[in-house]
Structure formats: structure tokens, C-alpha cells
């Protein structure tokens, strides 16, 4: 029986993972962490004298709060032996600024990993990373494996940089004898209702986006339900390393944008480059990636054979759009 800590459980992907783990008979206790108030969806799971789910508010980017949590009596009582690191995502993926301009996502990954390594009871850590860390080669679509080159360009936009930094942090601990670290690189996550996560260009509030004219890269997509299934399978597996996890579908960026109410307006590339440099010059460094990221030109699909062999993950949900009763097309994930 496992006792699992889940970070950012108040965000959509964290909520989904908590739900799946709660229904997993091999998970005895769940410690859900989040910055916000407890999600209403969790109310049903907290009944009884000793509820299986415990929720705690915490700022994961702050050293003191994370340190206090990992040394707290509550952690000892719950006997947490596994950690699921869900990165910051959703409406404000950048998060509040952290000291020395370190992105919140990187700071959180570092703190959670550091304390998991120091903890005597924690034996495994499953982290969700982004597949956008790969260096995208020219072409509308490229099949990427776990061995594909990472984009280590120091000039990358800060958001992309934070994904790569987090990825490297987890990579550095694959050889740890104390902690089993397993990193899942997931592409764009879509959820029913037109929600989209972990795509550097489309994440955030609905509305118009831009893309270079003449390019329409393929985006590999995965349902949030499949991500949760992959996390659950990874928790059970006694392995370490990095694994690509993706759904069956690949969708052009323009179509994915329409499906998720974020239409991408084609704009001539030179204009976008100008806009990017202008934005960067006037302090909008975080927006730079929205205009000239490689992911706006070159696409990818992920080779997931390694995950299938290592812990038996194959996608179970197909992602598409369906016309609901009110006649509006919405993204849906349907079990195959």
C-alpha cells in the first residue's frame, strides 16, 4: 500500500491525478498539496474519521514552507512514501516571481526533489515534465524518442527554460540509490471542455494567438485522463528514467487552437520576430516565447514505445471534438 503526496492538487491536472489515485486500491493515503482552497471535487473523498485524502495549502516555491511540510508530524503520520510532482500549469503557469528571477516552476521542482531525497520514508518520485524540452528539428512533424536532443539554447524564452531546468534536475537524480525518480515527458494535455495545458503557446486564458504564416506544426496531444493513468502505472513500476507519454492523436496547431477556443492567427514570420524583440526589449521577457518559439514552426510526435514496454502504458482515450447538445464543438476525450 502506498501513501502518495501530490503537488498542485488544486490545479486541473493535479485534481485528475488525485481522483485516479483515490480509486486505486493500492494507494492507502493521499496528501494533496495546493496553493488555493481545497477543490470542491475533493469533498466527497474526505468523509470518515480517518479520510484517505488530506489536503494542505502550501506555496511550493518557498523554501521555508516546503521544508516545514516535509519535516512535519503530518508527513510522518501519513507515512508518505511516494511523491507525484505535478508542475505548475493552468491559467497562470509562470507563477509569482521568485528570488533571483528563478521561475517558480524551477524553484518548485528543485525544492520538492531536494526534500524527497532527504526524506527517510520517500522511496519514489514520479515527475511530470514537458515534451517541449526537445530540440525541434525543421519539419512539420518529427518522431522524437527519449534519446532525442534537448534544446539547451541559453537564449530560450524563460518558460521553456524552466521546463528544461526542471527536466535536468530530475535527470541528475536517476542514479540515486535512495530515491527512484521517474520522469514522464508529456506533450500538450487537453481536457474535456476545451481546456489545454502544458502547451507553451496555447496554455492560459482562451483567446486569439499568433503563429508564423506558412507553418502549421503538428502537436502531439494526450488526454488528462491518460496522464493520470500513466502516473498511476508509473507509481507501481519499479523502474527509473525518462519516458515519453502521449496519446494517439496528433493535431495541427491551427486546428488544436480552434478546438480549444484559442484560434491562431497566421502572421508573417518577420513581423513576429520584430514583435518578439520589441516585447523582450520592453521587459516582456516572459511573452517572448509566444511569438517566436520553435514549437510554432516545427512539430513533433512522441515515440512512446519505451513507456509501453516499461510500465505498460498505452493511451486509452482518444481526443477529438464532439458537438454537444447546444451545438457547440468541444474537445472531448473518449475511452477506446
Amino acid at each position: 500500500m502506498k501513501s502518495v503526496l501530490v503537488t498542485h492538487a488544486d490545479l486541473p491536472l493535479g485534481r485528475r491525478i488525485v481522483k485516479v489515485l483515490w480509486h486505486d486500491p493500492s494507494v492507502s493515503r493521499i496528501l494533496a498539496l495546493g496553493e488555493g482552497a481545497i477543490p470542491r471535487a475533493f469533498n466527497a473523498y474526505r468523509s470518515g474519521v480517518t479520510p484517505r485524502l488530506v489536503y494542505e495549502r502550501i506555496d511550493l516555491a518557498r523554501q521555508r514552507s516546503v521544508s516545514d511540510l516535509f519535516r512535519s508530524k503530518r508527513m510522518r503520520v501519513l507515512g508518505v512514501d511516494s511523491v507525484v510532482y505535478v508542475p505548475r500549469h493552468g491559467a497562470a503557469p509562470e507563477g509569482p516571481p521568485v528570488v533571483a528571477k528563478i521561475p517558480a516552476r524551477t524553484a518548485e521542482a528543485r525544492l520538492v526533489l531536494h526534500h524527497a531525497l532527504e526524506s527517510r520514508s520517500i522511496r519514489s518520485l514520479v515527475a511530470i515534465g514537458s515534451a517541449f524540452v526537445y530540440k525541434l528539428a525543421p519539419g512539420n512533424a518529427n518522431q522524437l524518442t527519449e534519446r532525442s536532443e534537448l534544446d539547451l539554447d541559453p537564449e530560450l524564452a524563460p518558460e521553456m527554460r524552466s521546463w528544461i531546468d526542471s527536466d535536468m534536475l530530475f535527470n541528475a537524480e536517476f542514479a540515486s540509490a535512495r530515491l527512484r525518480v521517474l520522469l514522464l515527458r508529456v506533450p500538450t494535455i487537453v481536457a474535456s471542455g476545451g481546456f489545454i495545458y502544458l502547451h507553451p503557446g496555447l496554455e492560459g486564458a482562451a483567446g486569439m494567438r499568433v503563429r508564423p504564416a506558412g507553418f502549421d506544426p503538428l502537436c502531439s496531444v494526450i488526454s488528462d485522463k491518460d496522464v493520470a493513468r500513466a502516473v498511476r502505472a508509473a507509481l507501481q513500476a519499479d523502474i527509473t528514467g525518462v519516458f515519453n507519454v502521449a496519446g494517439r492523436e496528433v493535431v495541427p496547431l491551427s486546428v488544436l487552437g480552434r478546438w480549444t477556443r484559442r484560434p491562431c492567427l497566421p502572421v508573417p514570420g518577420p513581423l513576429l520576430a520584430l514583435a518578439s524583440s520589441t516585447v523582450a526589449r520592453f521587459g516582456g521577457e516572459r511573452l517572448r516565447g509566444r511569438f517566436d518559439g520553435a514549437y510554432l514552426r516545427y512539430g513533433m510526435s512522441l515515440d512512446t514505445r519505451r513507456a509501453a514496454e516499461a510500465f505498460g502504458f498505452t493511451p486509452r482515450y482518444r481526443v477529438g471534438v464532439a458537438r454537444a447538445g447546444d451545438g457547440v464543438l468541444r474537445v472531448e476525450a473518449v475511452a477506446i
Partner: protein
Amino acid sequence: MSGDERNGRTEGNGAKPQPPPIEVALGSNPFVDALAGEVDPLDAWLVALDRLAAGAENVVPARPVATPPRTTATTRAAKPLPIAEPQAPETEVEGVEPQGALARLVVGEEANQKLAALLGRIDGWDRFGLSRAGLSQAFPYFYALYKLYFRVQSQDHDKIPTEGPIVLAANHGGLLPFDGAMAVLDVLLNTDPPRLPRAIVERWAGTLPFVNVFYARVGQVVGTHENFSRLLGDGEAVLVFPEGVEGIRKPITQRYRLQRFHVGFVEHALRERAPIVPMAILGSDDQAPILFDVKPLARLLGLPTAPITPTFPWFGPLGLLPYPVRYRIVYGEPLRFHERFDPEAAHDPGLVRALANQVRRAIQALIDEHRR
């Protein structure tokens, strides 16, 4: 939350009830109905071309587009997504056969059936960007080129294995890669069940606006090792031009003389246990004979070649159009190196180079034999 979760059951415990059909659960099948309503930008261009070809008033739109009824923000927010009764899709399934004026004029019944059989195996976009809609829309144009412009004659196509991974290796020429398009079409039309060879293109092509989208939607793939390996692993037919750019920029004095081969295709054929089918494409080197290649200018402009032909640059971009030469495509006996060597042989550079030279000699022999 899924029904299983609501019932406190998890997958794998044997008690899971069968899920309802997609149409019942969602009101319609999202993977037929909704995709039929999606418009790929490439489709839009091709539909516009189709209209131009026949005059707008005579043309039935190639694919009826389902436009969702406009709803206001208030109705969207207020309605909690009621599940509708199953209903027939609003649009017909796209891309079952090529439509439009050009298709009606030139595409025969047999070609239609081949295409329909091929399209039946494609669902939306494949992982390399091949689009069912893109293929069916582009097909009539290339078929017209195949039948009417280049008047392709094909020979010995029974030597193409009908299943399993294969590498088709051909000579390259003619400035613009019409030889690739004709080779793809020739294999498609002369195999049963029809096979769509996935042509490997230069990375440079992947950086070109619009061209990269078009190439991907009609099934061409940028030549990275992972792509090549995965295509063969999936049992696809892969078309390569081992000469690379050197083939298309060779001068008229070198026509039909094969240039030095790249060897990556042999490595992948050995690893993925695929036979190599040599192909000779006759006609491509005559479609745009290059008198001079101004290499300094090409380097300055970042282009693979800066050619001078009898028509280019004198007639502007029109000078790049190929001459209406007749194409002949001849297939050789498959070279089954994988039956003689282990996959580890792919790590031996000397052996791989020798095998690549053997393929080169086989193609050169086909060219020399059939040019006479």
C-alpha cells in the same frame, strides 16, 4: 469523472461494464463528424485551386464544411451540455474519393478505387502529418500531371513487395522534385493493396513556409534518423533519393550519372530488416536541364542551388516549370541485404558504404539499360 470512478470501480478489476458507444455518449461520433467539419489550411488552398480550375459557379465545394451554429456567451455558459440524441453526421465523411471538376475530368474509376482504399486506412492526421483530406484534395492535380503532363510509363512494378517495410531508392534530378511526386503516385497506382511511399525530404524543405505544410499533408517526411526508423518499423514503404541535393543540381553534362550516395538508408534497411528496391526514373533529368550552377550565389542566398537553365531565370519563376517530358519508371530486383547481414552490420561504415555503392550500381544499370 468517469462512470467507473463514480461507481468506485477501477479499470482492471474485471467488473468494468462496457462503455456505451461513442455516438450515444457524446451525441455524435467526434472522430467522423467533427473532423469532417475541420478545415485544414491546405484544404482551403486546394479547394480554391479547384474552383479556379473549373469556374466557381460550376463547382460543388470539395467538402461541405460544418460551421457550428453561433451561440452567444450567455447560452454557452448557461447550458450544461445536455447529451443529444444520436443523429446522422451533418457532413458526409470527407475524402472518400477526390471531388471537384479536375477529379471528374481526369481521375479514372480504378485510380479512384485505389485512393479510396488508401484513404480508408488514414484517420485524421497521422503522426507525420499525412492528412486524409490533404491527400484526397491533392490527388487529382498530381494525377493530371502523371497522366497528361509527364505521361508516365511504368515497368516491372510487380517487383515491389506488397507488404512489410521496404526502401525504394531512386535517382534524383530535375531541379524541382516532380520525380518524387511521380514515383509516389506510380507506386500508389501499381500496388495492390495500394501503398503510399513516404518520401524522405531534406531538412531544408522543412524550413520553407507553406512547402513544409504541403509536404507533410501529402505524406512526405523530413529525413531524421528517428523518422526513418519509425516509418520502417511501422512497415511503411519509404522512398529515398540517396544522391540528395547533389542529384537535383547536377549539370546537363552529368545527367543520368548518379552522384555520390548518402548511406543512411542502408543502415536503416539493415536495422529494420527491409529490402531495398532500386528504381530508375527516366525523364527527370531532362525536365529542367541545368547549364550552370552559380554556387557562390546559392551560398549567398542560403539556397541549395542557383541554377541557370534554358528558361530560368530568363522567364522568371515560370522558367522553373518542368518541360513536358515523358517519364519512365523502372523497378529493379529487391536487394535483400538484411538476409545476408545482421542488424549490427549497420555499425560497420565500410560495409554500409559498399552496400550503398551496390545499390548505386543497380540503379545506374537500370538507367543505362532503359535509356537506350
